[in-house]
């Protein structure tokens, strides 16, 4: 009986600190990585500005949220940011299209090499980074309102009688649900609609797509709109779940790229898979398993140390490690995307 309780406690512990956070973080990474992979598939370059596009989208959401709040508009138990999200997506999509028209289209006309596009996107990244800081500042902003927890740790303990608590934040559930909806909508679009199929055809074989009469500028336009929408959604979900700090989105670029490459770049399904792989690895490698082992180990065995592989400061090393490993062992990624 005591062992069963220990087992349950261990399960709750791991769910609370690894499983649930990894699922929501993985969903956020997946949304970001799908955007990166789509741009890569269609425009054939790695867009370094994607993280900043997430920051910009989140910033736009915050401004609109504040405006709504000042007018007394809210969405009850849900965060007001959800109401602001569609408007922010519109603004970010317009920005992405404007950037494409003013910067990337120039290099397309000149048929520049992919590396030129990448460097241009680094420039865009710095530009957006500066823009966001000028507009909203560098401070941490918490813009979550509505109900915070669906399950509180204390209530859970009382209910179950276990010594470990399980907390489930509303933002974690929202993240997962919205990510699933967004991904399903994207796949439906790519598999079923004329424009979606044209995008896949263009990504598959550009010359043949042109010969079939597919308009490349239209495909590029739609790609930016989708990438900006996904970036805004990912940025807002991350910001709601944790908090908004402009610098964080710059750091997120690495795990997002790792996710896209692990899954097979140019492959939306792979990007989703990669997002969860990176998130689970990062959180598992930085979690201290001391208590977990204590529950599961027979007798009164307690590990001397924290049983933690890496401290959380090193979490980015995990993405790096996965990235290098994949590039060495299977450069096409799990689902056999393109080689960068």
């Amino acid at each position, binding site marked *: 009986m005591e062992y069963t309780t220990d087992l349950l406690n261990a399960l709750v512990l791991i769910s609370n600190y690894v499983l649930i956070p990894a699922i929501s973080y993985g969903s956020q990474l997946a949304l970001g990585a799908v955007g990166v992979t789509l741009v890569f598939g269609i425009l054939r370059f790695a867009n370094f500005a994607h993280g900043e596009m997430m920051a910009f989208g989140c910033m736009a959401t915050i401004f609109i949220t504040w405006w709504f709040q000042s007018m007394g508009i809210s969405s009850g138990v849900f965060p007001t940011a959800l109401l602001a999200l569609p408007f922010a997506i519109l603004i970010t999509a317009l920005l992405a299209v404007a950037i494409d028209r003013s910067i990337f289209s120039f290099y397309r006309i000149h048929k520049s090499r992919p590396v030129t596009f990448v460097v241009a996107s680094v420039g865009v990244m710095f530009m957006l980074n500066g823009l966001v800081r000028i507009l909203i500042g560098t401070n941490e902003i918490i813009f979550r309102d509505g109900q915070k927890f669906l399950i509180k740790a204390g209530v859970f303990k009382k209910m179950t009688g276990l010594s470990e608590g399980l907390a489930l934040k509303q933002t974690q559930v929202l993240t997962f649900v919205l990510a699933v909806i967004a991904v399903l909508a994207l796949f439906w679009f790519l598999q079923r609609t004329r424009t979606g199929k044209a995008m896949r055809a263009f990504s598959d074989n550009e*010359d043949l797509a*042109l010969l079939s009469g597919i308009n490349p500028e239209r495909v590029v336009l739609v790609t930016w709109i989708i990438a900006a929408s996904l970036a805004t959604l990912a940025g807002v979900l991350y910001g709601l779940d944790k908090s908004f700090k402009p610098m964080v989105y710059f750091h997120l670029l690495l795990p997002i790229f790792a996710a896209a490459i692990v899954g097979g770049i140019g492959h939306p399904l792979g990007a989703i898979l990669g997002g969860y792989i990176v998130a689970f690895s990062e959180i598992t490698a930085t979690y201290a398993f001391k208590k977990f082992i204590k529950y599961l180990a027979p007798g009164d065995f307690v590990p001397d140390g924290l049983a933690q592989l890496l401290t959380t400061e090193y979490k980015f090393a995990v993405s790096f490690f996965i990235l290098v490993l994949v590039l060495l062992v299977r450069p096409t990624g799990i689902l056999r995307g393109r080689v960068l």
Partner: protein
Amino acid sequence: MSYLIGEKLTGGYGGPDIIRECTVSVDQGEIVVVVGPNGAGKSTAMKALLGMLDLREGRVLLDGQDISALSPQQRVAKGMAFVPQNQNVFVTMTVEENLEMGAYLRRDDITETMEQVFELFPALKTKRTQIAAELSGGQRQQVAVGRALMTKPTVLMLDEPTAGVSPIVMDELFDRIIEIKRTGIAILMVEQNARQALNIADRGFVLVTGENRFTDTGEALLANEEVRKSFLGG
């Protein structure tokens, strides 16, 4: 005057001229084959007709209309269909999706055209939901030709359609091309398998170093001693 004419085409890919004063023409309901040794500019001549290279001289006429200034996409919209030699299918898409993409420019109902393609290539019908990467080489060529036919073209241009397929598959494909010709489409083909291609051709052009060397009916070219010796291996 022929339906599609490339008149005295001169040009290349930015560097030296690959074709010089090269003339190729094809009529509706006719198979015309362009043959010649490697590097003779056969594929280049065909790409010139489609507007894929910069012409320094010459013009392209389609149904009497000068289309030299049109982009490849615009020429496709005018009824010219092209099957490239390599990478001529969308490998990650299903057979059906490949055909749909071929008909991308059309806004009307395409099911009838698709049925016609399936009648021509029955093997594709059973594999319609399979992705093109899983098909055999011959079936891929069928998808490539089928994709091109989806626009209901008046001219079908094929760049070495039998490259890399077995002799049996080649014969089969040539039979299908004759069937397509009977529907009144003008067919222009570049071929390495010169003898077999000239066998089914109404007319043939022999190109050497980017210039016309012989122009005659397929039969006459096959009978021509000099052509046989130099280009058909005796």
